[in-house]
């Protein structure tokens, strides 16, 4: 036994020695020199071109100048002529599009010169076939912008996307001087009034989305237009709601109290809004959210 033990020991030590001495240590992985990729951490608002503010809006100045004219010119038309029908139809379905407005603006220029009665027939064509004189007067940006708008509108006909991409409608909304009243023309559920120039659209969107998740709007009510609820509340820096949200408008609708309660519940139920950027706390500390049940009804 001792003999075999010695043999075994010797063989083992020989093998171990061989493993240590003869077997080389594994080759180190030769990693290629990697060119460092510099990564900047960017605020989303630096990237996002969309702002939830009332500034910007490229075609705004022109439209503002033009819009009164349009109304002036368009209004007389429906009265005398049998053809006015196409026109209101045309303007109404796409109120958010700046394009009809532009078309109308175009129209306004030629309109005074020829008689309005003969005009209406070629009008639709004119609007499309007459890009030649347009560029002279207008920068190209609004035009392409308008075309994009049109495409988008075709692409997303359903109301759901209209609800989700409310940003698209914002330029139009901004043109309205009577924003504060929340008239139907705004076509917006909830706008963040408390935010000013700093808050980017993505953050406002996020807040909007978060609140709407918790909102059970009153369904199937008549006169939903009178059930727009404006809720004003203050948030702590960690996104929790401070105090009780206040309903800052009122309505004669008997269901308004129900709608207001549901809106307040939504605001309270979805807190904390912890993804709001703390460095912009001042901009969203005091926030007003508009709850418009009509859009939700449209969705439902």
């Amino acid at each position, binding site marked *: *036994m001792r003999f075999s033990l010695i043999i075994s020991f010797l063989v083992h030590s020989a093998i171990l020695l061989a493993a240590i001495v003869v*077997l080389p*240590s594994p080759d180190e992985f030769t990693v290629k020199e990697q060119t460092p990729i510099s990564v900047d951490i960017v605020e989303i608002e630096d990237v996002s071109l969309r702002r939830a503010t009332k500034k910007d809006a490229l075609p705004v100045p022109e439209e503002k100048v033009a819009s009164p004219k349009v109304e002036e010119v368009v209004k007389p038309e429906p009265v005398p002529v049998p053809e006015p029908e196409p026109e209101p139809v045309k303007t109404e379905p796409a109120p958010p599009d700046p394009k009809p407005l532009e078309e109308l603006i175009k129209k306004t220029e030629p309109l005074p010169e020829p008689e309005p009665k003969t005009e209406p027939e070629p009008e639709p064509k004119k609007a499309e076939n007459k890009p030649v004189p347009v560029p002279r007067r207008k920068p190209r940006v609004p035009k392409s912008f308008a075309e994009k708008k049109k495409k988008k509108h075709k692409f997303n006909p359903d109301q759901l996307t209209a609800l989700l991409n409310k940003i698209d409608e914002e330029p139009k909304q901004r043109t309205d001087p009577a924003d504060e009243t929340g008239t139907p023309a705004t076509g917006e559920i909830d706008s963040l009034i408390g935010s000013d120039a700093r808050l980017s659209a993505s953050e406002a969107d996020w807040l909007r989305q978060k609140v709407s998740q918790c909102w059970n709007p009153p369904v199937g009510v008549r006169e939903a237009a009178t059930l727009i609820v404006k809720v004003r509340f203050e948030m702590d820096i960690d996104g929790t709601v401070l105090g009780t949200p206040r309903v800052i408008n009122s309505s004669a609708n008997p269901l308004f109290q129900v709608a207001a309660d549901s809106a307040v519940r939504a605001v309270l139920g979805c807190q904390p809004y912890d993804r709001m950027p703390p460095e912009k706390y001042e901009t969203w500390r005091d926030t007003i959210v508009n709850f418009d049940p009509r859009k939700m009804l449209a969705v439902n």
Partner: protein
Amino acid sequence: MEVEIAQTMAGQDGGSILALFMKAHIVVKIVMLGLIMASIGCWAIVFEKFVTIGRAKRATDRFEKQFWSGQSLDDLYLTLGTAKTQAMASLFMAAMREWKRSQQSAMRAGFHGMEKRIEKVMDVQLQREMSVLESRLLFLATVGSSSPFIGLFGTVWGIMSSFRAIAVSKSTNLAVVAPGIAEALFATALGLLAAIPAVIFFNKFASDTAKLSARLENFADEFSAIISRQLDERM
């Protein structure tokens, strides 16, 4: 920053087996050493059994040839008497010794007791031979079944320590984790290294000894039959 430190650390030690062992946690070291000892013991037993069982087999073959060659049993007893006997020969020698010893008493008390005594003696001798052949085989079985678990224990320990290394360095970099896992896996490798030959050779030797013991038992039965025939002829 952390990455570079970890890489230089890994570079210093290298990945050789000795470095792997030196770097290991003390528990893992003990496990590794224990497994190496077990492996040494196993192989020692394997060598020893290889020799003893082979020798027993050869001696049995040789004796069987002599026994069935027609030589008289007394002559065989005399020729074998001087040498140290193995296996079957030792059975024969034990039986013959008992035979010679009971010659006197058999005259008085009859042959019946003598027959029984010879059988008993051969039985005892057979047990003795088999116990020599089978000794330490159980160690092989134990190592074969338990050393994977011991190696696994070392592995678990090493992986635990490598997770602790993650916790301490707060980095999941591979250079932080890899040494611990490598040493851990080394423990399992040693466990398997000890266990696999142990199991293989245990099975081999177990079947060898079983065959040999069957042969010896057959011989004992045959020899006792021969003796009882002879005694009956004498009467």
